[in-house]
């Protein structure tokens, strides 16, 4: 059985503690950037997916299927190792100056997550009675304006809980960024492990942080569900 003496002091203070904190901050930064961009992109794709124009709809459909059915790790590798051929030179130059690891991870996470968010938004929109769209169109709003003023404000309110869960997924998925050298939480835990041979302590610390994040966020979603959606239903 397990024959191991735990030594927690090395990760609760000093240099290794600082590494873990930096890791957590990088995880939060990467997740925040990705979720915001993914929301914008996902909204765009969702609207395109429901558009009347066929090529636009097909493009959005292909986008969704492709990015949802490919592993995130492969997408990260593609953006990190292989995207220089398809990106314009000035973007490549800018990326090389600003630290390409973080940018590649953020791009991959954004695109991967946007495909899932688009589906969440779409099911939110589908839950709005279609008479509202018809009424808006007959009142003279264009398709985009009906979406903007009538449908989306309601749909997004319904979509908020799944969106928050997506943030949780992004935070967990951002751990894959360690494979290209982004120094986030898992990377730092691994780093502490290889410097100290204290794998159990380092991974426990990282696990506790991820768990705390997910507990706090799940609790927030539950409160939102109870307070806002229920109140809305009752009204």
């Amino acid at each position, binding site marked *: *059985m*397990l*024959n*191991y003496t735990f030594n927690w002091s090395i990760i609760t203070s000093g240099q290794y503690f600082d590494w873990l904190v930096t890791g957590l901050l990088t995880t939060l930064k990467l997740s925040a950037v990705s979720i915001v961009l993914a929301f914008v992109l996902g909204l765009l794709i969702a609207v395109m997916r429901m558009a009347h124009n066929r090529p636009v709809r097909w493009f959005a459909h292909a986008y969704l*299927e*492709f990015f*949802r*059915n*490919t*592993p*995130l*790790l*492969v*997408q990260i*590798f*593609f953006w990190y*190792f*292989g*995207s*220089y*051929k*398809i990106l314009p030179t000035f973007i490549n130059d800018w990326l090389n100056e600003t630290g390409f690891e973080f940018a590649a991870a953020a791009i991959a996470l954004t695109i991967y997550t946007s495909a899932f968010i688009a589906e969440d938004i779409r099911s939110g929109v589908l839950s709005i009675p279609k008479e509202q769209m018809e009424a808006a169109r007959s009142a003279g709003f264009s398709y985009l304006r009906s979406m903007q003023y009538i449908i989306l404000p309601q749909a997004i309110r319904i979509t908020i809980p799944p969106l928050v869960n997506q943030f949780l997924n992004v935070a*967990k*998925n951002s*751990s*894959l960024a*360690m*494979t290209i050298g982004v120094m986030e939480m*898992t990377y730092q*835990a*691994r780093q502490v492990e290889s410097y100290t041979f204290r*794998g*159990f302590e380092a*991974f426990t610390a*990282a*696990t506790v942080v*991820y*768990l705390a*994040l*997910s*507990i706090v966020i799940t609790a927030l979603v539950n409160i939102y569900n109870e307070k806002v959606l229920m109140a809305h239903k009752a009204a």
Partner: protein
Amino acid sequence: MEPFFDISVITDNFTYFMIGRYPHGPLGGVGLTLYLAVASCILSFFGGLILGLLSVSRFSIVRYPALAFINLVRGMPLLMVIFWMYFLMPALFGKVAENNTVIMALTLFTSAYMSRIVVAGIEGIPKGQTEAAISTGLKQWQVMLYIVLPQGLRNMIPSFVNQFVSLIKDTSLAFIVGVSELTHVATQINNRTMAFPTEIFVFIALVYFIICFAFTSLSRWLEGRLSWSKAN
């Protein structure tokens, strides 16, 4: 001028991409990816079934530990679970092959998600059926085994297939502990050839896409079929 997209790196290494060094060496590439996914899928079906049943048990002494375990795993990134297994398994059982470590990690991780599907499937069966079965004199476990599960499991099939798709994608993380599945093979070839990262990663993305999309479509087709036969 060199071609924009040079597929010779794919065609030259095609067998290596597909099956690794098999049959002269260990299985790798797509073959290993599918092996890992299928093995973990079968194991986590049973894992998910057991966890799901425990988490709806009447006895809180088994329900709470099951729920705690499910939420613990669901709150963790898969990469973390793999690292845990990578360090725990040798400490507990001595030397364990990397393939088995990864299968173990994928099974634990996926079981937690499968258990939620099982619970949803059980709760989807009308309560009246359980009450009717109990009043005919069946015991609680008999009701579950003969009445609820056979119907519930059938409704879960599309979700199981979706979970299998996630598993195929998740096997790519085995790369991190040096298991030579498709993603690992791709990074190897990329390191060796140096000049064709775009070609290599677009190619393996397409391979994953073809496999996953086939199963996603299967799941949608099953969903349509099952709901059709239910309506009649």
